[in-house]
C-alpha cells in the first residue's frame, strides 16, 4: 500500500477549478517529483493534500486514512509536514523560535531535535538568535525545511525548495534533501529545477493543465524526449 495516495483529486479556488482529477502516489522511502509548466496546479495539489485547499471530489489517503477532509493542523499531527514555496518562515521570530513553532504539536521535550537540526544545518546554529527575516535566501530555505522536520514527519512535502536560490546553493539544498531521505523520510517535491530533481527521484509525474500527463521513474522521465522537449527546456 502506498504511503500517500491521492486519487482523482478535483480542487481549486472559488469558482475556478485548477485540478481536474489528479492522481499521484508516494511509497515509503521514495523521493517523488512533480514537474510541469507554470500554472499547471503543482502547488495547488500540495495545498490540497495538506488541507489548505479543499478537495472537492476525490480522495487523499495517508497511511490508509482519508485525510482530504482534515484541517491542516490535524494533517500535521498525522505525520505529514509541508514547506510552502514562499513565506515559509516566521520572519519576526528568531531561528530557534521558528524551530520551536515547528514542534508546536509535540508534547515531549524536543530540545534534542533542535540540536539535530543544528547538526544537519550548521548555518542555522550560528544564526539561532537572529530574526529569521534577516537570514539569507538559502538559510531561510534551510530553516523552512528544518521547521517542517521538527515533528519527525513520515512524509515531507516541499514546494519548490530551490526557487530563487543561487546555482551553488541549489546543489546544496538537493544534497540536504537526499540526506533527509536517507534518514527514512519520504519526500514529495514540486520543482522548477526539474533535471536535478528528477535525477535523485525514484519516480516523477508530469502535470499539465490540471491533469496527469506522464508517470515514470525519475531517470526514464529525464530520458523521455517528449518530456525533455516540453518541460526540461530541450
Amino acid at each position, binding site marked *: 500500500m502506498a504511503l500517500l495516495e491521492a486519487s482523482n483529486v478535483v480542487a481549486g479556488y472559488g469558482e475556478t477549478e485548477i485540478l481536474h482529477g489528479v492522481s499521484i502516489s508516494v511509497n515509503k522511502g521514495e523521493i517523488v517529483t512533480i514537474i510541469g509548466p507554470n500554472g499547471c496546479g503543482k502547488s495547488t495539489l500540495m495545498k490540497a493534500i*495538506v488541507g*489548505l485547499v479543499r478537495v472537492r471530489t476525490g480522495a487523499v489517503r495517508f497511511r490508509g486514512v482519508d485525510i482530504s477532509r482534515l*484541517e*491542516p*493542523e490535524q*494533517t*500535521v*499531527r498525522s505525520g505529514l*509536514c*509541508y514547506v*510552502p514555496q514562499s*513565506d*515559509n*518562515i*516566521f*520572519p*519576526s*521570530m528568531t531561528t530557534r*523560535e521558528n524551530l*520551536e*513553532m*515547528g514542534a*508546536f*504539536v509535540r508534547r515531549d521535550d524536543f530540545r534534542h531535535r533542535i540540536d539535530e537540526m543544528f547538526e544537519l544545518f550548521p548555518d542555522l546554529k550560528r544564526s539561532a538568535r537572529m530574526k529569521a*527575516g534577516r537570514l539569507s535566501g538559502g538559510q531561510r530555505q534551510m530553516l523552512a525545511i528544518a*521547521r517542517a522536520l521538527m*515533528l519527525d514527519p513520515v512524509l515531507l512535502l516541499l514546494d519548490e525548495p530551490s526557487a530563487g536560490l543561487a546555482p551553488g546553493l541549489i546543489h546544496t539544498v538537493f544534497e540536504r534533501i537526499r540526506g533527509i531521505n536517507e534518514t527514512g523520510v519520504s519526500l514529495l517535491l514540486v520543482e522548477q529545477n526539474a533535471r536535478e530533481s528528477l535525477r535523485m527521484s525514484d519516480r516523477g509525474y508530469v502535470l499539465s493543465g490540471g491533469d496527469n500527463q506522464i508517470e515514470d521513474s525519475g531517470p526514464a522521465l529525464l530520458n523521455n524526449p517528449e518530456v525533455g522537449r516540453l518541460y526540461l527546456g530541450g
Partner: protein
Amino acid sequence: MGFLPFVKLGLVANGIIFGSVIALGAIGLTLVYGILKLGNFAHGDYMAFGAYVAFYIVDGLLPRAGIEGAGLGPFTFGFPVLIALPLSAIVVALGAIALDLLIYRRLRQRGASTAILMMASLGVAIAIRGLVQLIWSGDTQHYPRESRQVYHLPMDVRIPPDGLFVAIVAVILVAGVYMLLTYTKIGKAMRATSDNPSLALVTGINTKHVVWWTWGIGGALAAIAGVLLAVVQAQLLPIMGWKFLIPLFAAVILGGIGNPYGALIGALVVGVSMEVSTQWINPSYKPAVAFAIMIGVLLARPHGIFGDSQ
C-alpha cells in the same frame, strides 16, 4: 532637563500617565489586528464597558457585601476599585471571546474581507455603547472618591497619586504581556500567527486557541485601561471609550500596526504630544493632535516608525 526648556515638565508627566492608559488599549488593539486582521472599532467601547462593569461592582455588588470605601492611602479611590479591576478584566475578556464566537468567527469562516470585519466591529461598538447607556444611563458617574493632595516634585511638576498608580499598573501589565509573548508557548504561537497565518496553520499551531487568547488578553487590557481612564478622569461616560479611539489608533499606527512593542512607544508619544500641546492650543483640540500624528505617520511612514519594508 536641558531639552525643550520651553516645555512644561508637568505636562510631560501627565502625558506619560495618559500615554500608559493609551498603551494598555493600544496593545490589545494591535494584537487583535496582527492576528485577526481586524481593525476593532469596538475596542474603545470594550474599555468603556470595562469601566462600567467595575462601576457596577464598586457601586452595586460590593456595598451589598459590606465592602465600601474611598480614599485608600494617597489615592482618591478605595479598596473596592482594586477588587473590581481584575473582575472587570475577566468579564470583558470572556465577553470579547463570546463576541468572536458569535460574530467575527462566522464572518471569517465566510471569508469576510477586512472592511466587512471592520464594519461589523463598528456595529458592535454602537451596540455596546447603547447597552451601557441602557443599563447605566447617559449621565456622568464616578467611582466613590475622596479628594487627595497631589505630589509636588521639583520644577513645578505635580503628579496626582492616582496617576502614579495608573502608570505603575500599566508598567506591570505591559511587562506581563512582554513575558507572555516572549517566553510562553501560546505567546510565541500568537506572534507566529501574526507573522504568517497560513504557515501557522500548516505548522500545526492551534489557531483557534490563539484567537481566544488574543481576545482574552485584548479584552482584559481594555477593561483595565477603561477603569484606569475613569480613575484619572474622575468620571465615567458612555462615550468615553469611543472618544478614546483616535489616540488608540494613532498609537497603533505610529508603532506599526500589529507590533505590540511599537504600540507601547506610540502610546507614550501620542499621550505626551496630546498633553504638551495644551501649552499652546486649547485642550479641546487634544484629539486633533492625535489625529494629526496618525495622518502624518500614514503619509510619511505607513508601516510605522519601527516598520520595516518586509
